[in-house]
């Protein structure tokens, strides 16, 4: 909210320095986002045009004799056309400093001009919000008055942030009240006596049909004249960021900015029987707003209607039909209180937000209806309108419920001691009523405008604010033992540190993506998920879908670089099951690499990826070996993809990314990825030590010729099974295909390691075991020993 300091000073004594005011507000919980300082303007005074005549030498100029109070009248020429004798206007005297220029004595077409009549623009006010031409003041303003000082035009404007619980402070008086309490100085309120009591003028009636209107204070005013507002009001509104419109609209805006209470004026002539009805809108009811926009309403909207049509969208905006116009002579004032939630929903549904609704939707205190109405009545009466008897409809003002407050809670919650007397003084300054309730408790009644204070915790915050949050002293707590596990987080950390140790670099990508990812998948020959999890209200199409896997973002990332990369990401992926959106934790790691010069039945990069994957799984599970099996799945190379299994369950998939997909994503180098769903990985099992044999081991290297289709792992497993308990390791270490073996065959070099636990194994024993195992393989797979 824009808060002109000059306006705020009406109600409370404040330091001169705006920074000092800003830091007080910040300590009260109202941070100041910006301090807008005003340009230095001097030498501008009010002048009365005593005479005005044509310039002797120029058709387009006029020359005025301007009375300026004590000094001799000034002769000033002007090109403006909105001037006339008798007006009080803004005059920049010789030597005056304006934002763009300094006024000097000069001749205009041969006539010496002793100053300049100036416009709002020269006073650094928004030019198009004020009269076209010379700035006009009220006749009551004494000629010679220093304009900048009088209107406090040199005072800074603060941009104050007001939290949603403090709608009472969305106003000059609200903030002044806080500053007065903080400094222990008096608050100077405008007089709030409701004029018009006892009038026998026109009467009116308000029927409240909805409980969402809690209170409706109304009053009729006759003899209204919607001309321009006095200069002081227009200047204040402008500095507060509100465009001045006319006397009536300005009064309603001014009162809202001053008290927080929004108002609405109806042209009484347009309201049959002066009867207003607060009711739900009818389905399909047409509403033509002030700005001419047309809306079809639903019963969700609350309206204030005449007997014939809706005249106001409660808390939002008035209807064109009954808006006040220059022809309005009699008006009905509305100062009402609504259920904030209802106003908020309607505002959202209709996509309308006004200064009024931004206050109503936070549920104003009902007491403010009286204050707003009284202040408006006073300003209307000042402007010459005749007030008639005011009336209040709806619920009576209920006193706020008292809060029982244990004074020891100050120490218990805030951590510092405060004497009861000090607590009472602080609350008293904020307008709370405090009385003792038993030994250590206080009974506290919040002031009626503080509907946000309803519990002991709320009172504590008031005490903390008044004492100053700086009083809270840092202290390290002794946290008592508990048994909340950190296992999921630890596992994620373990994944990250293991992969980093294996040389992979962690990346973090967006979980939301657009349809272009699906397009790339399609171009790469991969069907996008049938039911991707979709955001109902995305900010942009680029953020419509939740990722179903980590692969696309990884590929997009790898496409950005030409050199080999090793990266990993840990994150949530999203999918739909039984129409229910679900999520799980996934890990993806992999690398790009320059292709190697290898026969097409061998891929060392794949084996490297597999090695990393096994090392990764070993670190997570403490298990030593994993089965592998060829696998085929979309996005991966049909001949270079495998799954790793543990106890028969698949726990990781790895392989080369399908080269078609690689190209669709624009990745230059072949990509090898390993994908793991964290929930599939069995828990870490604490490894148990088995003392190794004291006796040396021996080994036999075998060259076995078998069908090319036979996976090495099957031979290894079979060898191991038939080699008996002395066999400690079977490992294939080379493969040969070529002219030295028959067509359709390959030769695998396998090392069998043997060791006995109770004696040194002899050559004869080793030879016998291996010979038996080889003959078993011969029987099962038809393998032969290579000559």
């Amino acid at each position: 909210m824009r808060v002109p300091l000059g306006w705020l000073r009406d109600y409370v004594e404040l330091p001169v320095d705006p920074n000092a005011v800003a830091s007080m507000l910040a300590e009260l919980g109202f941070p100041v986002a910006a301090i807008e300082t005003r340009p230095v303007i001097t030498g501008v005074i009010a002048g009365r045009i005593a005479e005005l005549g044509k310039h002797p030498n120029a058709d387009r100029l006029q020359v005025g004799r301007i009375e300026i109070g004590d000094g001799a009248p000034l002769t000033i020429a002007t090109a403006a056309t909105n001037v006339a004798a008798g007006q009080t206007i803004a005059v920049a005297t010789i030597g005056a400093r304006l934002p763009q220029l300094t006024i000097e004595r000069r001749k205009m077409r041969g006539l010496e001009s002793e100053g300049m009549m100036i416009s709002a623009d020269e006073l650094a006010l928004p030019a198009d919000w004020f009269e076209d031409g010379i700035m006009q003041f009220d006749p009551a303003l004494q000629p010679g008055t220093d304009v900048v000082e009088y209107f406090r035009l040199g005072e800074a404007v603060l941009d104050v942030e007001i939290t949603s619980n403090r709608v009472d402070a969305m106003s000059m008086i609200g903030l002044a009240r806080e500053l007065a309490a903080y400094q222990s100085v008096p608050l100077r309120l405008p007089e709030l006596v409701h004029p018009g009591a006892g009038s026998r003028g026109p009467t009116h009636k308000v029927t409240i049909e909805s409980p969402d209107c809690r209170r409706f204070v109304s009053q009729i005013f006759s003899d209204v004249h919607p001309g321009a507002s006095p200069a002081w009001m227009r200047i204040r509104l402008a500095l507060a960021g509100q465009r001045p419109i006319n006397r009536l609209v300005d009064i309603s805006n001014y009162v809202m900015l001053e008290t927080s209470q929004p108002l609405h004026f109806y042209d009484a002539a347009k309201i049959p029987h002066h009867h207003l009805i607060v009711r739900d809108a009818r389905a399909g009811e047409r509403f033509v707003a002030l700005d001419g926009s047309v809306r079809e309403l639903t019963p969700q909207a609350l309206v204030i209607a005449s007997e014939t049509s809706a005249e106001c969208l409660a808390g939002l905006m008035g209807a064109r039909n009954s808006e006040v116009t220059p022809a309005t002579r009699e008006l009905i004032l509305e100062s009402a209180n609504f259920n904030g939630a209802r106003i908020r929903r309607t505002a959202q549904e209709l996509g309308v937000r006004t200064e009024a609704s931004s206050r109503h939707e936070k549920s104003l205190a009902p007491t403010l209806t009286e204050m707003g109405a009284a202040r408006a009545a006073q300003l209307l009466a000042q402007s010459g309108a005749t007030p008639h008897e005011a009336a209040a409809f709806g619920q009576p003002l209920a006193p706020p419920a008292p809060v029982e407050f244990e004074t020891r809670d100050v120490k218990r919650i805030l951590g510092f001691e405060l004497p009861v007397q000090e607590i009472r003084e602080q609350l008293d300054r904020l307008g709370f009523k405090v009385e003792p309730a038993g030994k250590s408790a206080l009974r506290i009644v919040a002031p009626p405008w503080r509907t946000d204070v309803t519990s002991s915790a709320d009172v504590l915050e008031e005490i903390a604010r008044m004492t100053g949050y700086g009083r809270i002293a840092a202290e390290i707590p002794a946290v008592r033992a508990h048994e909340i596990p950190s296992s999921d987080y630890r596992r994620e950390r373990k994944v990250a540190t293991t992969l980093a140790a294996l040389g992979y670099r962690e990346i973090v990508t967006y979980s939301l993506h657009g349809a272009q990812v699906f397009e790339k998948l399609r171009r790469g020959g991969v069907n996008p998920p049938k039911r991707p999890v979709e955001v109902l209200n995305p900010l942009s199409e680029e953020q419509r879908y939740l990722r179903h896997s980590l692969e696309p973002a990884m590929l997009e990332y790898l496409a950005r670089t030409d050199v080999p990369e090793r990266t990993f990401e840990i994150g949530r992926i999203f999918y739909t099951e039984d129409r229910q959106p679900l999520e799980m934790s996934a890990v993806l790691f992999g690398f790009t690499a320059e292709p190697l010069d290898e026969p097409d039945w061998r891929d060392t990069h794949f084996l490297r990826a597999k090695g990393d994957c096994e090392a990764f799984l070993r670190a997570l599970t403490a298990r030593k070996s994993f089965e592998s099996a060829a696998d085929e799945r979309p996005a991966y190379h049909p001949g270079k993809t495998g799954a790793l299994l543990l106890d028969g369950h698949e726990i990781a998939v790895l392989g080369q990314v399908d080269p078609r997909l690689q190209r669709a994503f624009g990745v230059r180098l072949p990509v090898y990825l390993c994908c793991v769903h964290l929930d599939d990985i069995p828990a870490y099992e604490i490894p148990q030590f088995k003392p190794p044999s004291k006796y040396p081991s021996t080994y036999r290297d075998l060259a076995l010729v078998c069908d090319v289709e036979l996976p090495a792992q099957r031979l290894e497993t079979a060898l191991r099974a038939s080699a008996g308990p002395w066999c400690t390791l079977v490992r294939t270490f080379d493969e040969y295909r070529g002219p030295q073996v028959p067509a359709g065959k390959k030769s695998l070099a396998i090392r069998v390691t043997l060791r006995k636990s109770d004696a040194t194994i002899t050559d004869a024993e080793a030879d016998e075991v291996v010979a038996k195992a080889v003959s078993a393989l011969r029987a099962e797979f038809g393998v032969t020993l290579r000559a």
Partner: protein
Amino acid sequence: MNLSTNLEQLRARFEAALKQSADARSLDSARIAFLGRSGEVTALRRTIGKLPAAERPAAGSRINEVVEQMETSFREAQARIDALDVGASLSQRIDVTFPSVAPLQGSIHPMKRVMHDVCAYFERHGFAVVVGPEMEPDYYNFDALNIPPDHPAREGFDSFFVTPNLLLRPHTSPMQIRTMQQHRPPVAVVVPGTCYRRDAVDARHLFQFNQCEGLLVDEGVHMGHLKGMLTGMCRELFGSEQQVRFRPSYFPFTEPSAEVDTTCPLCRGDGGECRMCGGSGWIELGGAGMVHPNVLRNVDYDPDVYSGWAFGFGVERMALVRYDVDDIRRFFENDAAFLEQLA
């Protein structure tokens, strides 16, 4: 030919082979050829069986004698070769300034590192680290946190909805509720995790970000403890001189509530023309406060017995300050240069 002659010839040939050997490998093959399991000495031993029984012991000991001599020669030859090797090695000269062979070096993402440092600090003080789902129902995001439907504060959590009742969490606070539902006090947890808000993107804001939530509930927990822990955390993250300041604020799930600032690590609180803090000398970290009694009641904790505090800070925000990064988007772009510099 008698055994002695044979043995002498054998030894002579072995000595010659040793003499000719210029390296360990040829030395070894000479050893295998003569003294190995299937070497010439073994073959000679087999001939003993053909001798009359009376001559056998003498023949055996003769062979052993020669073998012993051969082994001595072998060890001498070995020592000679080894001395040659050492000499050759010592004469090598390399350029030690030549660039190193790079190890395979991975790294942890800088945002995750900050996240972990925060968690590690709290773990040291007895907090558990818990993680939770990124899609959460209204109840955990709002209702249980004292933000009923139509509460104006919901506006501050402009959220992405996946179904009318399921949304991408706009903060990590749902885990406050889930944790307290599952455990009785004392509860001491930090919650790191990804959050989403419908924020327009600029150098300071993103629709996706990470948060670290902290929650301590027990008897006798007060706001000074919050300040103490946060001060410690800031000193760990930004430097040993860090101070922490609270300013009053409003969040529906805490009362009293505070905005938390820490000394600007760049200007060390001097302000002036500092580009990081804009001259205020302070950096905003995020919101905190004493857990609202209604939140405690929602999980069946008695607010007259238990009190607690909570905070929720943006991890990227802390990382921006810690590493002096100019734009939050860098944390999601993963530029090689960015990751390398902060690795």
